[in-house]
């Protein structure tokens, strides 16, 4: 338990991704089975212990500590597990601290009525860091800034495995993952994932930087502005995975229910526009459906989701990934005939004899859900990640607006201490400046220095970490699209805004007006 507690503690204070990977990796290599497996499950969120409610913790502490002092301390610290861990009177029992596996075994076995006695015994055998780890484990949710994907990547790196390969076998293994560690250490077979609805890493595209590409080798299709999704149906179960490998089945139950054909598909999740059965709507409409645990009937009716298919990875048990794109496309068209056409269609190919024709198409595309064009090499297999020369994306040119800097905030990571997050606005007809967006990228390091200096020397007010600045600096902001939104007072929100130029030459009064931006909204 001490080693796991130390790992959690270090992770809390570590910001860099690589440092987190190294910390987790070092722990997984050093800790014994089955402790390390339980630790990995805790980090990936695959360990659920539900017997201990926060109320039990509060009651336990109040038996040991003056409730008034406990209340004042909790107010001050703001986190129940941390307050309880710190305030619990030092170890009462001379027994050695428990192992992580012992803790997990006990917590899995106990009922709610047994929980107080068992927790008391465990708390008494641990120091403050150990108690913190125990309480976080027992009440669920470690919150140490580690995603499931990061934890799995750390495991893969520690044992020199391919993270995508680990992801594939993941759903075929269960905590404490002794088979997985045996495989990692070369003592056992690769665990099988044949009968589980597992996630396969997506194939991604490079931006098209120059046109040094022979178009006769490539097929062209639209790039849709929705959520890239992988549909998996195997062994009677359906899963929807996002690009990061998160299970988003719950958010789109109607799509999951209508996909009952064994196989694995790659597509774009979109919602229908205003007219029922009409064209795909903007990303903004789709956002209404994201991140919801339960989906209301109104949501299902107003934002009807469907999937526009790009590719097929598996047809039943048959792995099509090694086959060339042309073969897979043919298989996808056949597969489509077995699907509900109200929920699924195929992303159509566009005719691309030369770049001039493509350019005309790209510029003419004003449909809300089109983000640009894709080029896919006809003979390429389906491989994970971005590989040079196989897939390219060619986005629509961004829109731009001249805005005035209004507020600034310090950045994070390598930009901590610099004012690098800017809120900017445009003018109303009454001559008032209203925020339209926030950006923290697009500038060079030198421009950042200049912007930081501007903020420091032109601050007119401070609100906690936020500085309000003199409304004199014009920023040219590039963005992919703009939508009606309640996020800003102006009633507009930009998608992917970034600073494209600093217009020191331009007087603030000549920045764009809100009506102009509204005209660009889709």
């Amino acid at each position, binding site marked *: 338990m001490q080693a796991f507690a130390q790992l959690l*503690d270090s992770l*809390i*204070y*570590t*910001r860099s991704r690589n440092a987190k990977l190294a910390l987790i990796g070092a722990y997984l290599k050093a800790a014994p089975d089955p402790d390390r497996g339980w630790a990995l499950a805790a980090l990936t969120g695959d360990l659920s212990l539900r017997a201990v409610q926060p109320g039990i913790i509060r009651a336990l502490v109040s038996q040991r*500590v*003056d409730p*008034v*002092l*406990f209340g*004042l*301390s909790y107010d*001050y*610290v*703001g*986190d129940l597990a*941390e*307050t309880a861990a*710190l*305030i619990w009177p030092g170890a009462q029992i001379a027994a050695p601290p428990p192992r992580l596996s012992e803790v997990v075994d006990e917590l899995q076995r106990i009922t709610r009525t047994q929980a107080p006695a068992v927790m008391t015994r465990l708390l008494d055998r641990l120091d403050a860091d150990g108690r*913190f780890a125990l309480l976080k484990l027992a009440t669920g949710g470690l919150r140490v800034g580690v995603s499931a994907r990061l934890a799995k990547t750390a495991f893969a790196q520690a044992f020199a495995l391919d993270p995508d390969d680990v992801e594939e076998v993941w759903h075929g293994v269960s905590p404490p993952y002794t088979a997985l560690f045996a495989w990692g250490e070369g003592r056992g077979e690769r665990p099988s994932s044949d009968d589980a609805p597992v996630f396969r890493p997506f194939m991604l595209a490079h931006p098209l930087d120059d046109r040094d590409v022979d178009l006769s080798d490539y097929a062209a299709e639209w790039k849709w502005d929705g959520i890239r999704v992988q549909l998996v149906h195997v062994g009677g179960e359906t899963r929807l995975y996002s690009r990061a490998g998160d299970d988003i089945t719950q958010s789109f139950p109607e799509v999951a229910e209508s996909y009952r054909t064994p196989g694995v598909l790659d597509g774009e999740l979109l919602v229908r526009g205003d007219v029922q059965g009409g064209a795909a709507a903007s990303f903004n409409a789709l956002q209404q459906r994201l991140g919801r645990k339960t989906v209301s009937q109104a949501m299902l009716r107003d934002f009807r989701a469907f999937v526009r298919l790009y590719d097929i990875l598996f047809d039943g048990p048959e792995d099509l990934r090694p086959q060339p794109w042309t073969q897979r496309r043919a298989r996808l068209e056949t597969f489509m005939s077995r699907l509900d056409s109200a929920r699924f269609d195929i992303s159509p190919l566009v005719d691309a004899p030369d770049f001039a024709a493509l350019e005309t198409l790209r510029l003419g595309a004003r449909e809300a859900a089109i983000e640009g064009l894709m080029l896919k090499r006809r003979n390429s297999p389906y491989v994970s990640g971005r590989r040079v020369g196989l897939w390219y994306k060619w986005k629509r040119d961004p829109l731009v607006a001249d805005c005035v800097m209004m507020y600034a905030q310090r950045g994070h990571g390598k930009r*901590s*201490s*610099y004012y690098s997050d800017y809120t900017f606005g445009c003018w109303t007809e009454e001559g008032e400046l209203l925020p339209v967006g926030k950006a923290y990228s697009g500038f060079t390091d030198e421009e950042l220095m200049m912007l930081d200096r501007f903020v420091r020397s032109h601050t007119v007010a401070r609100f906690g970490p936020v500085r309000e600045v003199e409304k004199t600096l014009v920023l040219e902001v590039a963005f992919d699209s703009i939508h009606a939104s309640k996020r800003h007072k102006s009633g507009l929100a930009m998608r992917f805004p970034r600073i494209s130029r600093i217009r020191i030459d331009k007087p603030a009064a000549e920045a764009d007006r809100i009506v102009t931006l509204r005209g660009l909204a889709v």
Partner: protein
Amino acid sequence: MAPRASWIEAHPTGIYLPTADAWIDPAVPVDRAIITHGHADHARGGHRAVLATRETLAIMDCRYGPQPGQAIGYGETIRLGDVDLRLVPAGHVLGSAQAVLERGGERVVVSGDYKRRPDPTCAPFEPVSCDVFVTEATFALPVFRHPPIGGEIDRLLAVREAQPERAVLIGAYALGKAQRVIAELRRHGYDAPIFIHGAMQRLCDLYRELGVDLGELRPVADLKPAELAGRIVLAPPSALNDRWSRRLPDPVTAMASGWMRVRQRARQRGVEMPLVISDHADWDELTGTISEIAPGEVWVTHGREDALVHWCRQRQIPARELALVGREDEDD
């Protein structure tokens, strides 16, 4: 029964002794100030007369220019009006003192800020029995229990050894904490030069003049990043996340403060390595000291007053909050 120590008044700006016409640690300039120690929230400039230890006066001279000061040695008694004043060590920082006040057979101890842990840079706290004990309450919650400093210094040295390509940057209050950390590093056998931020230079020099051995200290300025790899660097907490720290080679950011006990506090500071090192008494020291001195009454100056007052009353010790203004505790 008459109220205890009615010859002492608590005002928001400080503690006032009318018959001696003297203030203790006043927040505004006054005619005569008794200063317990040199931290800026206790020692301010602009008083017409200052009574303090020799060390505290030297610190004030260094920060505010020459002071109209009268030095009082530890244990020496002087009379102000009808009040006897004696200063005894508080163990907080170099020169820190408790003001022991006596009048008409009543004794009041104003402890200022204090701690009970050993500190190689200052004289240890001396408990003085009294009718009224005036105490701070910076860490007066039972979640604050400072670990022994030796373990914290060991962790620090272990990190430096494990990552020789990085500098170890320690945020520490420029008066007291910085010198204590340096002295403890020396006690643990670390004898390489220690690099300090420019804002610490004068106080470190002063500590040395006053007889505290800090080993070899060098300014950070003018050094190239590569030359700082594997070095220990001290800077005021405000410099940790400022542009100043960017000259260091990917530093391990540490912070020496009692607040580091609370993880979220440390995270907000962007600290990678929290060091729980405080010059204030923790919960056990505060309550232990009150039990040891067994005063007739406890007055609480600043910090988590409500918790300490509650604890006293639970034990039948009369206690009240003084609600002084201008006391800061963020960086300790």
